[in-house]
């Protein structure tokens, strides 16, 4: 009993009081680019593993960026900088383009989904080639720190009980059928969330031959959560904004 009490005392209060504000210390989050002419070095483009960065004008596509920092290391003019800002989800894939002076397109809340799920949202996660980093961060969104349940958001074990499918991984050919089955088992209304560079664009595996992304050309994600893996706050804030939860 005493032991249990001391564990409880040490545990203290762990939840982040306001997940809507603040920047996790040290996080390599939302990039910021500096305006100006590039010398013709193209070093960042050569170093980027996913062709996420381009010059003239300098831009990073967060649909593909894996936040590996290679571009920062090679840029002779320090034009790329990553900030600890975790908010960077968007409702359009094309909204994930970051340029000098412009950032990710803000999320457009969905009125219908807000009415249905604004106070209770059940999520089913499916990994289709995810490396377990995205999956661990999604799990973390429900831990004692991030505590997404305080908003009525939680994971469920069956797609039949789910309102949204949270997809990770580049969609392997061998998971293609299972992903479709999972989606088909979900009652409407429902929506799809693409989490991580892999799910959004194929990421590091975009040109792999064991990948089959045809499901995504039929069912478009309603929310895109960039990162590799995305920080739990990137995911949580994306959902809150999408559902218009204050």
């Amino acid at each position, binding site marked *: 009993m005493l*032991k*249990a009490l*001391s*564990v409880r005392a*040490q*545990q203290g209060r*762990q939840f982040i009081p306001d997940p809507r504000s603040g920047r*996790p*210390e*040290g*996080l*390599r989050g939302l990039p*910021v680019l500096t305006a100006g002419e590039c010398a013709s070095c193209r070093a960042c483009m050569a170093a980027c*593993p996913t062709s996420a960065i381009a010059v003239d004008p300098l831009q990073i596509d967060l649909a593909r960026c*894996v*936040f*590996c*920092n*290679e571009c*920062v*290391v090679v840029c002779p003019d*320090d034009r790329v*900088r*990553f*900030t*600890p800002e975790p908010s960077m989800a968007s409702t359009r894939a094309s909204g994930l383009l970051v340029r000098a002076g412009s950032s990710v397109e803000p999320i457009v809340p969905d009125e219908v989904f807000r009415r249905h799920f604004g106070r209770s949202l059940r999520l089913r996660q499916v*990994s*289709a*080639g*995810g*490396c*377990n*980093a*995205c*999956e*661990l*961060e*999604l799990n973390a969104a429900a*831990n*004692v*720190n991030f505590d997404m349940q305080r908003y009525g958001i939680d*994971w469920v*074990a*069956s797609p039949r009980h789910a309102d949204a499918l949270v997809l990770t*991984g580049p969609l*392997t*050919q*061998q*998971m293609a059928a*299972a992903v479709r089955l*999972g989606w088909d088992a979900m009652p409407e209304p429902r929506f799809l969330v693409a989490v991580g560079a*892999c799910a959004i664009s194929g990421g*590091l*595996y975009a040109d*792999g*031959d*064991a*990948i089959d992304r045809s499901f995504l050309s039929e069912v478009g994600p309603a929310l895109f959560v960039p990162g*590799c*893996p995305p920080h739990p706050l990137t995911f949580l804030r994306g959902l809150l904004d999408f559902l218009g939860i204050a």
Partner: protein
Amino acid sequence: MIQAQRFERIPERTVDDWRGRVEGALRARVHLLSLFGRRDGDEVLVTALLQRDDGAVEVERARVAALGYASLTPQFPALHIFERELHEQTGLSIHGHPWCRPVRFEGAARGSHDRHPFHVVAGKEVHEVAVGPIHAGVIEPGAFRFMCLGETVHHLEICLGYQHRGVEALLLRRDVRSLGPLVESVAGDTSVGHAWAYSAAIEALTGQPASPNESLRRAILLEFERVGMHLATLAGVAADVGFLQGAATFGRLRTTVINTIQRLCGSRFGRGAIRPGSTRATLDGFAGTGPTTGLSLPEVHANLTLVERDLQTVEDLFTSARTVRHRLEGVGSVSPALAEAIGLVGPVARAAAAHRDLRVRGPAAYDPPVGLATRSEGDCWGRTLVRLDELQHSLTWLRSAFERAPHWTTSRVSIGALTPSALVVALVEGLRGEIVHALETDGDGRLVHYKVQDPSLRNWLGLALAVRDNEISDFPICNKTFDLSYCGNDL
């Protein structure tokens, strides 16, 4: 023991000669690190990597015609998964293999999961339970089929490959010096382990070994990774036995640990920290990350103190709770003899009396060495205690390591040309056991083969055997205490 070893002019033996040498070594209980092959014209080059007790790695290679060779698995079951993979990847016939099933349905087998020939157990009382590929949690996919007699599991067959992304093919398609991000996603929870193996391999291939201080910083990141994931595993075990205070506290301590990693290198998973020729993590936040919130040495020590202290308290509560002990003890047993026979590695092997840990006579960074944790139970309880012991050892080691490396600066060596016609074997004791990367170049110094081996590859059979004769409801705790990687197996 070396981190990465380079071999040139490897003799190609005849099959008989090769078999004789490999059999001789295995009979003398030399440890088999890996066995793999690659096509070379109509033939297949089959390579066995053996490691003697003093740590030296030996390479035994045979040139095998497409007809194949007689399987070594009946004599040495630990080879079963390697010979299955060899067959799947090269098409080589492995005659007399008792169970030559797909490892991950790659190549020609891709997309044929539906036709997997599951074992069939017949009888009136038999019933089968099929689970997956999608599981009831936020985890990776895989298909399990339990063949049960009543509540008792007679056999479990595990069918993987759903996560197969074609990693090895992609590794050969891209610039060999910039494979870091891809390697880190082989098993995302083991980013540091795989990135270190890859970087050490490239450094050995170019003859530019990392400095002692650099290796030490890599080892620090690796131990943080181990501590973070062991805590995640323990949180899972605690949740599965219904011990929620344990689940909450182990999980909370993991957060402290991975947030520390993030402040060292910008990512909670150590992404981007280790690259050939550089270790981009510093105690003061490294140039270019943007954040000015680099971690100071006193803060690191404060975090370590907090984790050590609170871990001790929760460990006491957890291990002395009768409910926990009752649930884990004697469940999911793998005897030491079985563990050795099937070639288990890492903590699950050490929970069954194995003494193998690449860190013990490991790279220079581990001097003074990290303590070795072993138990003899071989059950869920043993696997839990081994992780708890390893946590203590890693935390103690981390403290001393920071004392030896108070100053962190980011070095950067530009990577030169790869040695032609060479094979490099890099070894890292990752959180689940030995990580093996074997890279080979052709006469022009181009990479012709990149073999990635995550420890999970060898351990999945252990899980299948552990649940035999247990109740089907024991599966979740067996699964949690094995804590294996799907994507690391599936590549």
